[in-house]
C-alpha cells in the first residue's frame, strides 16, 4: 500500500483543520473522557453532551497526537453530531471491527463519511490505536453519560 493512500488529502486536511477542537465548557456537558496511547504518549480529552432526545451533541476535544489520531477525532466530531446515542455506539463498534480487520473490511462511505478515508489504517496494525483514540474516548464518555 502506498503512503498516499494512508495519508489521503482529506486526512491531512482534517489533521490541520480539526473539527470540534477546543474543549467545550464542562457546564452543560454530559461526560468527559481522557484516553492515552502508552506506546506513543498521545493523549485526548473528549467531551460530549446528550440532548433531550438522547442524541449526541457538541463533541469537543483536545489533545496532541499524530495526524491519523487528530484527523480521526476531527472526523468523528463531525460525524457523531446529532446521532442517537445507540447509533453512535453501533458506529464505534463497526469502526473498531473494520480497523482491526487487517485490511479485509472497508469503511463504508455512507456510514462513515469523511472517516471512511481511514480504511487504509487497518493495514498498519501499529497505527490502529492512533485512529481509535478519539472513538474510544467517545465510547467511554457515552458509557459515563
Amino acid at each position, binding site marked *: 500500500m502506498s503512503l498516499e493512500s494512508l495519508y489521503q488529502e482529506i486526512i491531512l486536511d482534517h489533521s490541520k483543520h480539526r473539527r470540534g477542537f477546543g474543549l467545550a465548557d464542562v457546564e452543560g456537558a454530559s461526560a468527559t473522557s481522557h484516553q492515552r496511547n*502508552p506506546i506513543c504518549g498521545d493523549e485526548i480529552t473528549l467531551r460530549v453532551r446528550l440532548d433531550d432526545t438522547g442524541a449526541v451533541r457538541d463533541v469537543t476535544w483536545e489533545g496532541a497526537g499524530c495526524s491519523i489520531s487528530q484527523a480521526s477525532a476531527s472526523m468523528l466530531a463531525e460525524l457523531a453530531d446529532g446521532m442517537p446515542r445507540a447509533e453512535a455506539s453501533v458506529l464505534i463498534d463497526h469502526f473498531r471491527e473494520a480497523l482491526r480487520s487487517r485490511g479485509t473490511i472497508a469503511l463504508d462511505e455512507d456510514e462513515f463519511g469523511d472517516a471512511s478515508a481511514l480504511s487504509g489504517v487497518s493495514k498498519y496494525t501499529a497505527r490502529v490505536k492512533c485512529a481509535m483514540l478519539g472513538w474510544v474516548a467517545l465510547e467511554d464518555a457515552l458509557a459515563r453519560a
Partner: protein
Amino acid sequence: MTRLTSPILDAAAVRADFPNLAERVNGEPLVYLDSAATSQKPRVVLDAERDFLTHTNAAVHRGAHTLAAEATELFEDARTAVADFVGASAEQLVWTSGATAGINLAAYAIGNATLGRGGEAARRFALAPGDELVITESEHHANLIPWQELAARTGAVLRHIPVHDDGTLDLDAAASVIGERTRVVAFTHVSNVLGIVNPVADLVHLAQGVGALTMLDACQSAPHVPLDLPGLGVDLAVFSGHKMLGPYGIGALYGRSDVLEALPPFLTGGSMITTVTLDEAEYLPPPQRFEAGTQPVSQAVALAAALRYLDGVGMDAVHAHEQLLERRMRAGLRAIDGIRLIGDAPDGIERVALCAFDVDGVHAHDVGQFLDARGVAVRVGHHCAQPLHRRFGITASVRASAALYNTEADIDTFLDAVSGVRTFFGVGA
C-alpha cells in the same frame, strides 16, 4: 512436521524431527532420558526462531516501522498460541524467562503488596507476621526457596505438606496444615523426582476453603499431559519453555484475570508503564504490567512453534505413548536386583514417564557415568529437591525421564545398562 491422528504416536517419525537425537555419545547412539531437565527441540522450533531472526527481527510494541509491526504481530500471536495450549486467554499469560522467574514474580509481587505497593487492590495479598505459606515436601527448590525468602522478609511462616513413603501427598496432613492463617498454597503438579501427578483439585479445594492463593508448578506436567489451567482452578501457574520442546530463556506465568489485575508489578522498566515522571510511574494492565524491558521475542515465537508441534502430534497421543514408556520403565526397574525406586506408588496412580532410583552399593554419580558410557543420558544428584531426598534417606538419586520422542527400544537399552551396574562396580551377587 509429523501429524498423526492415531491415539498412539509413531515415535520413529517423531524422532526424525529432532536432529539432536541422531547424535552419538561415546560411540553409542544417544539414548536421551533427561527430558525432565531439558527437552530436545524439533527442527520446526529451530527454524521458527531462525526465520524470525533473519526476516522479521525488530523490537516489538514500540515501532512505527514495518519490521517492528510484523515482529509485534508474531509476538502477540505467540502469546495467544501458548495461552491456548494451557486453556487460557492471552491476557492471562505473562512471559517470564522461565518457571523459576515466574514463581519469584509471584513471591516478590506478594512481598511488594506487603510493603504497601499496588494500592487498595493489592491489599488482599499483603502478609502479616504469623500468616502461613504452605508448600509440599516434594517441591523443586524453585517452588520452595522463593517462599522461604518471602517468609523471612515478611515474618510469615512456611509450612509443608509431607509425602507418604510411596511418594503420594499426605492429604490428611494437608487438611490440617492448610488452615485459617494460610495465605498461599504453592505445589507442584508433578514432582520432578517422583513423577506422580498430584491431586490438584483436592489442594485447590482446601486452599479455597481458607481463601488462600494457589500457585501450581506445571513444569513437569505441561510437556506431558493435556493441560487446562483455568479448569484446574488454580490462581497462578508456571512452566518453562525449554522443558516443552521450546527454547531456553522463556517461560510463562498464567494467572486468573482478577488475580493478575490486582497484583503489583515485580520487575520494572520499559514497556510496562503508561506515564512516568522522575518521581513515580503508572503501570499498564496485565500481562504487560509484569513484562518489563525487552522480552524474549524470538523465543516466544519459537515456543509457540513448539506447542503447535505438540498439538500437531496431539497431547492425547503424547500422553498415551508416554504412559507405555512409563510402565515399561517402572516394571523393568522393579525387576532389577538392588534397585530402590523413590516414591514407588502403587500402579493406578497417575504418573509421567519419570523414575528416580537408588542403586544399592553404587553411588548415583557412578551409575550415571556407567550409563553414559553406553550412550544413555540420565540425571544424577538431588535434582534440586534436597528435602525430598533427605525424606527418603539419601542425598542423591539417578533419574531417567522420557518424552514423546523416546521409544520402547530406548527404555530397553536403558534397562539393560542398569542391570549391568552392580556387577561392574563389584557389589551385590
